[in-house]
């Protein structure tokens, strides 16, 4: 397939001396959209050479949880700007959440998002379908039509809103079995979180902000893992944020429940103490929790209880953050800081190596989303979705310099480790020398059917 690409003729790259998954230095020859060769001292043979001594080569990162805002909120983010941010952050695929306007609850909308993603060409944009019509939690959306569409939707979520009706959740879990889908649940009991502003605990008590109790998340997860077990379906838990949730998921997995779980980079680091500033850049849903929760989440990600890191990248226009805390929108950007934050919280703490990093940011999320050509080993013959990272680099976060339109990074001003040097998407460098290069050019859609895309790679 990649040989038919417009710029394939000049698209050969020899990555020289990169530590594959942090292991011994080896060369990778990328040609025709695939990893043509892996080994020592490979001849360049006309390929562009990238000297990668000291760099780590990883499978292209896959985000299971991204808000690209388009269609409907192009003032917050577009598919173009969001996927530029993704490429710069080391991603080669993102799952675009369904809470756009209109909601991605029909084949038409998910195909529109797919097309916008391919037109942009920076990463593979995988639309997520809504579970219920309009995210209203009342009636199942046409899950089958979205699954059968060109977008081949496999992940369904009302993210932002919990599918709290237990009967509806049960039906959704059952129904998606027909096409190997998964329901990604935003676990938040709505009655327990009416008006909630931040984690309920010592800090909310002092600040006088309405609490978002951990039990509101944990009770839904407990119910859902039991439902998933009962109907024999696949459940994914979005943005797990509490130590109690970790315990429930660990228990469910030990009982053989087919559940996967996700944690955001910010929940691996930040705590509700930051709310003392009343700066809404720290307002997010689920809220920042306590340090005990942070430590439990790190341990769970390291031991596999939590399967993946999902950014929950949620850009907002500045006027939705430059206001009172209670008025502010919930959410943080994350695509361009995820790698660095995970390196800081998981690798530099000794909890994980780069091979584990590849598992939680690429292999596992690709498997949950059923992306056959992502999250693959960096071996000869595999699709060339590769991220090159300089783990020794240090940089200071400046939201105004980011590709995302969102300025709402909670890491602004912090010095972070690790920098993406290059991102290869389908063999094409979308990022080179740490800067955006050019997008991958998809063939006209008539000749590249989704069903064949994976196979031809």
């Amino acid at each position, binding site marked *: 397939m990649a040989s038919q690409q417009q710029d394939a003729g000049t698209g050969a790259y020899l990555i020289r001396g990169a530590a594959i998954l942090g292991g011994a230095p080896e060369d990778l020859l990328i040609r025709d959209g695939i990893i043509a060769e892996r080994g020592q001292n490979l001849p360049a043979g006309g390929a562009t050479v990238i000297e990668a001594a000291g760099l780590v080569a990883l499978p292209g990162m896959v985000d299971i949880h991204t808000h690209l805002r388009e269609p409907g909120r192009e003032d917050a983010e577009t598919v173009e700007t969001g996927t530029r941010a993704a490429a710069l952050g080391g991603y080669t695929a993102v799952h675009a959440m369904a809470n756009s306007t209109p909601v991605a609850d029909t084949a038409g909308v998910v195909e529109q998002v797919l097309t916008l993603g391919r037109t942009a060409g920076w990463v593979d944009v995988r639309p997520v379908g809504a579970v219920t019509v309009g995210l209203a939690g009342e009636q199942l959306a046409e899950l089958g039509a979205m699954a059968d569409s060109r977008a081949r939707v496999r992940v369904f979520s009302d993210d932002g809103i919990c599918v709290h009706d237990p009967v509806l959740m049960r039906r959704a879990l059952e129904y998606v079995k027909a096409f190997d889908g998964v329901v990604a649940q935003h676990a938040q009991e709505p009655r327990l979180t009416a008006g909630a502003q931040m984690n309920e605990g010592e800090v909310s*008590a002092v600040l*006088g902000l309405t609490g978002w109790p951990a039990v509101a998340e944990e009770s839904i997860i407990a119910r859902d893992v039991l439902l998933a077990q009962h109907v024999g379906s696949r459940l994914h838990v979005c943005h797990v944020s509490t130590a109690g949730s970790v315990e429930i998921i660990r228990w469910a997995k030990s009982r053989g429940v087919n559940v996967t779980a996700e944690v955001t980079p910010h929940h691996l680091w930040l705590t509700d103490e930051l709310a003392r500033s*009343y700066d809404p850049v720290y307002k997010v849903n689920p809220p920042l929790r306590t340090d005990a929760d942070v430590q439990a989440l790190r341990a769970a990600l390291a031991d596999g209880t939590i399967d993946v890191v999902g950014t929950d990248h949620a850009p907002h226009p500045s006027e939705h953050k430059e206001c*009172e805390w*209670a008025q502010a929108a919930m959410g943080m950007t994350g695509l361009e800081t995820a790698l660095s934050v995970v390196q800081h919280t998981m690798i530099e703490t000794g909890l994980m190596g780069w091979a584990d990093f590849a598992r939680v940011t690429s292999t596992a999320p690709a498997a949950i989303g059923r992306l056959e050509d992502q999250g693959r080993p960096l071996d000869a013959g595999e699709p060339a979705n590769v991220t090159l990272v300089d783990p020794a680099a240090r940089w200071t976060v400046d939201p105004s310099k980011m590709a995302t339109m969102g300025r709402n990074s909670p890491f602004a001003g912090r010095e972070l480790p690790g920098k993406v040097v290059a991102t290869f998407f389908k063999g094409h460098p979308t990022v080179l020398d740490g800067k955006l290069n050019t997008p991958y050019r998809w063939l006209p859609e008539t000749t590249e059917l989704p069903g064949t895309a994976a196979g031809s790679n």
Partner: protein
Amino acid sequence: MRHLLSTEDLSRSNAIRILDTAEEMAAVGEREVKKLPTLRGRTVVNLFFEDSTRTRISFEAAAKRLSADVINFAAKGSSVSKGESLKDTAQTLSAMGADAVVIRHWASGAPHRLAATDWIDAAVINAGDGTHEHPTQALLDAFTMRRHWSKLAGTPSAGADLTGMRVAIAGDVLHSRVARSNVWLLRTLGAEVTLVAPPTLLPIGVEKWPCSVSYDLDETLARGVDAMMMLRVQGERMNASFFPTTREYSRRWGFDDNRLRALDSLGLKDTIIMHPGPMNRGLEISSAAADSPRSTVLAQVRNGVSIRMAALYLLLSGDTREPAHQANSTHSTPAEHTSALVTKESH
């Protein structure tokens, strides 16, 4: 002191300084000319996002007694979609040359946002934000308690704190900014505080607060209380299941006639009864208690003006706007003026 946002971060020395200054301000209220020229030419804006006539007129009287120009800005219709944002409002006030903004807001933390951002360069006084804090209310409460406590001890109140005073605060602590501000300030001043409330009206995390917690008002009174502060309880809380009925609330946690009599039988002859107002007579406090000689309700209102004068004076009298000016001053070095005990030279 650049702003007055909360009592949680108010130091003991600043708290005492405000109380002592308020004593002098109170003396002005007893003079023939009840006005000082101190803040002539300064503009104080009362920015109220929430109705509170009592607090607004108290600040207005305080500012006017100090000769400041007062602008009342009632910014209702709070949602961003409906009206102007806090940022735009603040920038507008800044352009109008406001020297101090007295802000009342339904959202916790709104005064902190004004103080922390570059939207406006004015002293910010929190006149009550959401369910967070109401520092001037706590200061006027402490002022009222200190006068009472010093009188009992036969010592002057200037410079004194509340060491050893037993204060009980009863009612809807969960939703009360008055309770929060009082807990922090009373701790700083050395009083022993007990919160009394139904468990549903105490915040999760209250066990970390520097006070005791009780569910039983009678037991708390029996252990001895020097000041009994009743908080306003909204009857609507009943609909959200915080308590079954107002009748049951009143019986268990209201300061009714039986408890008023109990103070006498317990030998607590000097115990005062406080309420920040407005009162729900018959719910959290009985009329007999509110009107008894023990009640300090009107003294609290009177002291509110003195406390707010002190806060405005202390925030606006320092050279907060142009630090460079002090360095250029030929009179004396800045360091000498940071303390009240400086070697003064007559100019």
